[in-house]
């Protein structure tokens, strides 16, 4: 019986020869991860669904160029991330353009697309947590999403981000520090009453 890794390697090999059925196997395996990561990066479900599907389409078109020893997901993740980052950049340009960026740069730069409808939890907590995540830098938001919502290990995150574990822990540290600031959960602040 083939292991998950071997199964994936076989599917990728068949995809390189143009098999759509083999690609369907990979899509079914990673579609939820792709959607939730995109959701974490762009903040709303409609865009996340569209971007995750677009990433699979680009992966399908380029899979024949992938080195045979490469795993699918870390490679696919780079495509998805680039798509999400370009999408965010365009959205911020549009927002900055529609607001008077010179008179009010803070408002122009703020990302209000992190709609709390896509997260579950106690209302007062989920709203503020999701909005705070939306205010993080892209690279900090990325590690928070991969760790907290995708439950990925440090090794898996490092593989997906093409960096070492030290960089992952360092980014997590600063991302969490920033989240603390945004949520007011630091020293002497019992804003949420969570022990």
């Amino acid at each position, binding site marked *: 019986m083939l292991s998950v890794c071997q199964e994936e390697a076989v599917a990728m090999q068949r995809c390189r020869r143009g098999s759509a059925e083999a690609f369907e196997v990979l*899509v079914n395996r990673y579609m939820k991860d792709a959607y939730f990561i995109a959701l974490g990066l762009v903040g709303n479900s409609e865009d996340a*669904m569209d971007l995750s599907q*677009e990433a699979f*389409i680009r992966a399908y078109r380029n899979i024949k160029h992938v080195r045979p020893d490469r795993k699918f997901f870390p490679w696919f993740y780079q495509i998805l991330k680039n798509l999400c980052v*370009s999408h965010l950049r365009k959205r911020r340009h549009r927002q900055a353009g529609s607001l008077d960026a010179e008179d009010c740069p803070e408002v122009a730069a703020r990302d209000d697309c992190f709609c709390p409808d896509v997260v579950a939890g106690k209302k007062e907590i989920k709203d503020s947590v999701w909005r705070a995540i939306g205010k993080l830098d892209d690279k900090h938001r990325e590690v928070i999403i991969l*760790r*907290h919502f995708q439950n990925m290990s440090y090794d898996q995150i490092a593989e997906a981000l093409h960096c070492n574990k030290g960089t992952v822990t360092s980014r997590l540290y600063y991302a969490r520090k920033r989240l603390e600031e945004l949520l007011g959960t630091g020293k002497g602040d019992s804003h949420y009453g*969570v022990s």
Partner: protein
Amino acid sequence: MACHDYKDLMMGYLDSELDAEQKRRFEEHLSGCPECAGELEEFKRLKAITDEVTLVEPEDRIWQDYWGSIYNRIERGAGWIVFSIAAVLLAIYCGFRAIEQIIRDPHLELTLKIGLMALLVSLAILFVSVLRERLYFWKKDRYKDVRR
């Protein structure tokens, strides 16, 4: 080691990513450092809050249609490529035939011939220019640089 050097271990401790030796080393540091112990408590509090928040899963039918939607988009993309190639070939063929007929037609005035020829040539230049621009941007496509 200064407290700052323990931040990696602190994250690993919080996320249960340390091996036994690293855990022992960090706990040893914690027992003698109230500042790091306090910071760890703050991180634990934050983690408890973020753990309460989960992403909402879309309805089942979205996942059932997911592959179908991707497949349709891939298929349509291939259809558009074939359609574009066919349209370009037909346009080139018709262009040449039109030029041939204009030149050979003895009833057309020279000025009209020159005007029509100029129109066709300008269309050809515009087409080549757009094609070259597309090729240029395709070569600079950021996804081509994705590590493989």
